[in-house]
């Protein structure tokens, strides 16, 4: 027993000096800072982990342990999914503005001729992309319309699908309200800039031609590559 105790003492003495050596900071300071560093680096990881879907329920629950607030506060709450999952098509906004004298102004944004330098153009480009994203939502379909044999489903399944429909409906309404809160100021801004009274907006999706189509002579701006959907008509507010 005495021999084991002596051996343990010797072991302790020969342990590498974790707290000595070339470190200007004391072991205590390093320990405290290490806690912050660990939490911060983990928070940096949590942001994209719990970020754009698909993301797990675990990642959401972890992010709710105070990480979300911290990530917002220091502004590192980002997904970093650059051109992911797909580079994708680009989106523009086409507008038609009517002035008080009846004249019409047509345009699109982003527009390299109106927005220069490139960074300013890109700002408008991102707004157009966000408008498209926020206005894409379709209202959910009733389960009875989705599933012809809905009435034959077990009661529990019918309840689940109905609850899901209600939840999706609420999400859709919330998305629609948020889209409206974005669209209306955008339209107002256009009317202010062009001294117009009425604005009509369309979301334009610009598809990408295949290499074969380009080799066959198709231009990147071929009209067949554009698809529009109306976003609404807006009147100038005082």
């Amino acid at each position, binding site marked *: 027993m005495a021999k084991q105790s002596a051996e343990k003492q010797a072991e302790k003495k020969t342990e590498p000096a974790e707290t000595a050596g070339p470190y200007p900071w004391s072991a205590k300071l390093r320990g405290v800072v290490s806690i912050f560093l660990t939490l911060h680096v983990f928070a940096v990881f949590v942001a994209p982990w719990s970020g754009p879907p698909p993301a797990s329920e675990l990642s959401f629950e972890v992010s709710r342990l105070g990480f979300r607030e911290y990530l917002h506060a220091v502004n590192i709450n980002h997904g970093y999914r650059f*051109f992911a999952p797909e580079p994708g098509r680009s989106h523009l906004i086409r507008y038609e503005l009517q002035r008080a004298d009846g004249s019409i102004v047509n345009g699109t944004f982003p527009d390299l001729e109106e927005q220069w330098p490139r960074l300013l153009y890109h700002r408008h480009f991102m707004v157009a992309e966000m408008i498209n994203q926020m206005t894409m939502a379709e209202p959910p379909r009733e389960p009875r319309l989705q599933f012809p044999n809905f009435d034959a489903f077990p009661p529990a399944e019918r309840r689940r699908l109905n609850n899901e429909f209600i939840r999706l409906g609420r999400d859709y309404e919330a998305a629609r309200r948020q889209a409206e809160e974005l669209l209306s100021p955008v339209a*107002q801004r256009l009317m202010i800039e062009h001294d117009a009274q009425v604005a009509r907006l369309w979301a334009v999706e610009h598809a990408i031609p295949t290499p074969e189509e380009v080799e066959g002579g198709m231009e990147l701006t071929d009209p067949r590559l554009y698809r529009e959907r109306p976003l609404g008509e807006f009147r100038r507010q005082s």
Partner: protein
Amino acid sequence: MNTITAYFRELRQASVAGWNKFWFLPTDPATLGMIRLLGGTMIFYTHLIWSLDLMGFFGPKARITSDFAKEFYGSSFAWSYLHWIESPGMLWTVHILALIALAMFAAGLFTRVTSVLAFIITVAYMHRAPGALFGLDQINSLLALYLMIGPAGAAFSLDNIFARRGWLNFIPVWLRGDAETVGESVTANIAIRMIQLHMCIVYLFAGTGKLLGGSWWDGTAMWQTFANYEYQSLDMTWLAGFPLLLNFMTHLTVAWEVSYIALVWPRLTRPLVIALAIPLHLGIAFCMGMMTFGLVMLIANLAFVSPALIRAVTSPLLMKLRLMPAGA
């Protein structure tokens, strides 16, 4: 049992030693200073461009309203002093002051204070203008955060120049920074390590996110970026005749991003990884019209370049400009 105990003891000791060596050895602030100079300039430029449509993005009748911005983030922690400013006159005043602070930060003047201001300004503008942001802002934001932590004004800065010439000795140290006393610094190392780790996480999720997309697997993703008219700044559609090359570029992009977190650390593979960052990000800069994003990613990658190399490259020029004593 003794073997298992010995293993865990060795694991603990090696982990602690490795952790200490990774985070707490002091380092030359040259890399941090260079990132401040270049990254600070990018942050300044970013905010300068807002000036061209300041009212359109931040004014009382902006296309993105303050209420929308608050609801978009859904968190009171997504703060911005710009929410409190409603008058155009006040907005312009605050914006010009912000530009002055950012210019001082980029030049490394009163860096201890201006680095904090740069962070506050960067975050405030981002939180006020959701929807108008992209990758550039995300990287600006992380650089501003970490440059605030270390002595970013201890190298390649006006603080440093003035300190060596004793020009600002009448100003308190807390304001003018400790440029003349900072040689190697632990906080410089911590700041650099944080940038390094953050960039590893950026590339890990950028790469794995791409693996969710079919075009990154079937090799057509790079074509989609080159043939996207709204992004295009250099016509690369001649690549339509070289499908295998497009496939290769697509696969290389994903492989590089996904492997970055592992291969950037070993001494032998780091130069290769950083070297590949150059054509990838310059490609984004020149071909996809995102010069700012391409350049800021390269600036952030500088965190993996040693201070010794930074000084070796910059010393001849600094000596010629007499910003550095000969033989320093």
